[in-house]
């Protein structure tokens, strides 16, 4: 144990001598959490810029205009009076949705004919698209309910009778887990897990390559220390810092960004520890096999986007082909992000998470086995080739 602590102490000293590494471990995760937190702090898409082209200019059309103006979902942009202007404003992103009230709108209503509104929305960004479509339908549904109630009142029905007719079949819909449709709850925590994944991987992956470049790795190889002790000592500081970052970032998410983080604290800690073990052990092993710091940094930097997109955290796995799902299932992030959502958002107990626990546990075992049994045999000295871009020798 003393040997492990000595190595860990030595590694900690090296970390603190490398200013950029210190920043990456202690500041960058918090910086990312703060910046992403500010991006998603509103969480809900409100005030969608909306143009209303009223070609009827009647009392009825003004009621439609008022319904949209009173909706907290929309922010009416004035000065757009024609269809051509609406088209131009949509192209230039000044508005994201439009409502066109046709001529003879009121007349059609008076003649008991169904009157049609044209609603357009910007689907080039589907976050705008899907939300705006939902909001448009909500406003019109509410408007229609009001109009139906007025119509029935006009037929001499009492308020109670109207309620009775209109609520003959009352469809109550309830959105579970994220009823406010908050993006902070849906997306932000997954992003934080990726930040932790990347920062830990990028920092520990230099732990051996750095020694190789300083020609100090040979001292570890020629020492009587067993491989597992070298791994444990070198990985320990990263493991501790990474877990600290995990808790810190979740605290930021819950307290400042108001992402919903509920569920069992024990499970959050258990899965966090497993995730940490996996990344730390695989990161060490990558560092062991990597030729130099520059290459390993470059390759690992590019992992984050594909890992996030293919994980099923956003676009569901049911709609992703088998081959990609199979690849994604090899990544710890895929399992961790889903398990984290099940714990913190769905508030599910361990019995629902046994598969995730088994897979992450299996990954931990494989990672630990690889990193703690590495060969200490010295490789023959490499031919010192041309130095390229100040960093790599071929």
């Amino acid at each position, binding site marked *: 144990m003393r040997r492990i602590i000595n190595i860990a102490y030595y590694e900690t000293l090296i970390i603190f001598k490398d200013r950029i590494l210190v920043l990456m471990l202690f500041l960058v995760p918090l910086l990312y959490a703060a910046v992403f937190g500010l991006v998603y702090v509103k969480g809900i898409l409100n005030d969608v810029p909306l143009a209303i082209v009223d070609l009827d200019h009647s009392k009825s059309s003004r009621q439609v205009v008022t319904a949209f103006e009173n909706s907290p979902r929309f922010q009416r942009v004035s000065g757009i009076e024609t269809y051509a202007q609406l088209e131009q404003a949509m192209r230039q992103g000044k508005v994201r949705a439009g409502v066109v009230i046709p001529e003879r709108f009121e007349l059609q209503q008076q003649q008991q004919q169904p009157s*049609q509104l044209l609603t*357009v929305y910007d689907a080039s960004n589907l976050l705008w698209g899907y939300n705006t479509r939902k909001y448009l*339908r909500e406003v019109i549904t509410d408007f229609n309910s009001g109009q139906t109630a007025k119509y029935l009142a006009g037929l001499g029905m009492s308020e109670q009778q109207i309620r*009775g007719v209109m609520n003959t079949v009352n*469809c109550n819909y*309830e*959105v579970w887990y994220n009823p406010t449709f908050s993006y902070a709850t849906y997306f932000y925590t997954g992003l934080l897990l990726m930040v932790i994944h990347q920062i830990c991987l990028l920092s520990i992956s230099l732990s051996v390559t750095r020694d190789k470049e300083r020609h100090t790795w040979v001292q570890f190889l020629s020492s009587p220390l067993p491989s597992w002790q070298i791994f444990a000592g070198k990985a320990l500081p990263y493991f501790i810092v990474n877990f600290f970052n995990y808790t810190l970032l979740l605290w930021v998410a819950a307290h400042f960004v108001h992402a919903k983080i509920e569920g069992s604290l024990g499970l959050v800690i258990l899965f966090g520890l497993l995730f940490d073990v996996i990344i730390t052990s695989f990161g060490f092993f990558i560092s062991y096999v990597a030729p130099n710091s520059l290459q390993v940094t470059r390759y690992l930097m590019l992992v984050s986007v594909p890992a996030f997109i*293919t994980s099923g955290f956003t676009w569901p796995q049911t709609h992703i082909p088998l081959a990609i799902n199979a690849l994604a299932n090899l990544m710890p992030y895929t399992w961790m992000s889903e398990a984290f959502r099940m714990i913190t958002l769905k508030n599910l107990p361990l019995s629902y998470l046994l598969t995730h626990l088994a897979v992450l546990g299996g990954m931990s075992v494989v990672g630990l086995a690889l990193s703690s049994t590495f060969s200490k045999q010295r490789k023959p000295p490499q031919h010192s080739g041309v130095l390229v871009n*100040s*960093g790599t020798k071929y």
Partner: protein
Amino acid sequence: MIKALLVRELTYLWRDRGLRNILLFGPLLGILIFYVTYSAQILTVIPTAVVDLDRSSASRDLVTKISQAEYLQIVAQPASAPEAEELIRRGDVLVTVVIPEDFGRHLTLGRQTSVYIGIDGSNMIYSTNATTAALTVAKTVSAEAGVKALMARGLPREQAKSAYQRVTLQEEPWFNPTLNYAYFLVLALILNIWQQCCTLAAATNIISETGRPSWTQFKLAGLSKWTLFVSKSVVHIGVFMLLILPIYGICFGLLKLPLHGSWLLLLLFTLVFAIALHSVGTLASSFARNPVDSTRFGMIIALPSFILSGYGWPLEAMPSFVQSVVKLLPQTWFFQGLNYFTFKDPGWLFARHYFVALGLIAVVCYSGAAVITSRK
């Protein structure tokens, strides 16, 4: 001399095997992964469970309506509400509809009855669509029941129907009429990988010279730093543009991703972005102590830039000071512009601001790098 420098830089880029592999294969691998991931393109099937506790003809009618609803697909008919809830918890279904006992009898007698619709809101891509679908089903079912109730009170059918058909909607999703996720995201994600790969190369620009022991000899040789770094930059930017051509060719030619604007405008815009991106990498490489640090600086900016660019979560939904800060990044202008130039074709006049902003970023970053490098 300049030709020799250009050839030298090209040789260095080629000899850096790791960087060469990343530049050549990174974006192409991105095309493969992202296009296959989004190959379903449209989220049409939302697994739904229906609990029919009534089993009357009215409830069967309702089940039929649900099965015909936009997006909803009935995949389970559990016997009780708790069973359906369990399916939601396990993620097997995303919507559950519970039709109560006596639904049909209450409907016939004109009494009130309630249908429960539960939606799993944990994944918003699903839940936004599921809610829209549920809203539509609820509206239809409620209106039909209301019409029947009015007819039962002696109102003629037409009058009863017109009470519920006050205003109908004709919806037109513009620019991406099929609400295609692949159209929305695939090209942007590939370009995100491309810009990350380019940043890796740009981050070697200055440190790859100043970090070498031969830098002193270089200076003593009397070669102008300006000539050296401009030559290197021209090669880098040229390579970035050469890399983008097959990407655009595959995306627009083979995968038929939408390009409603002009080819020329998009290519010019990409060139200006490549210059701005290169300037940021060059600035990082000017003050870094070694190539690893330079790569880290570049990627600290490049990695989150796509999220911050407002391509997904819109800029307008971010606090105003965050909007101002993220506009300092060239990626924000690029990904915003990409949306306009591929989907909307807003014209050259509109595009001018984007060119100016990227140009300004390039001038500032190259100037900063020049000042720092002049002291080395």
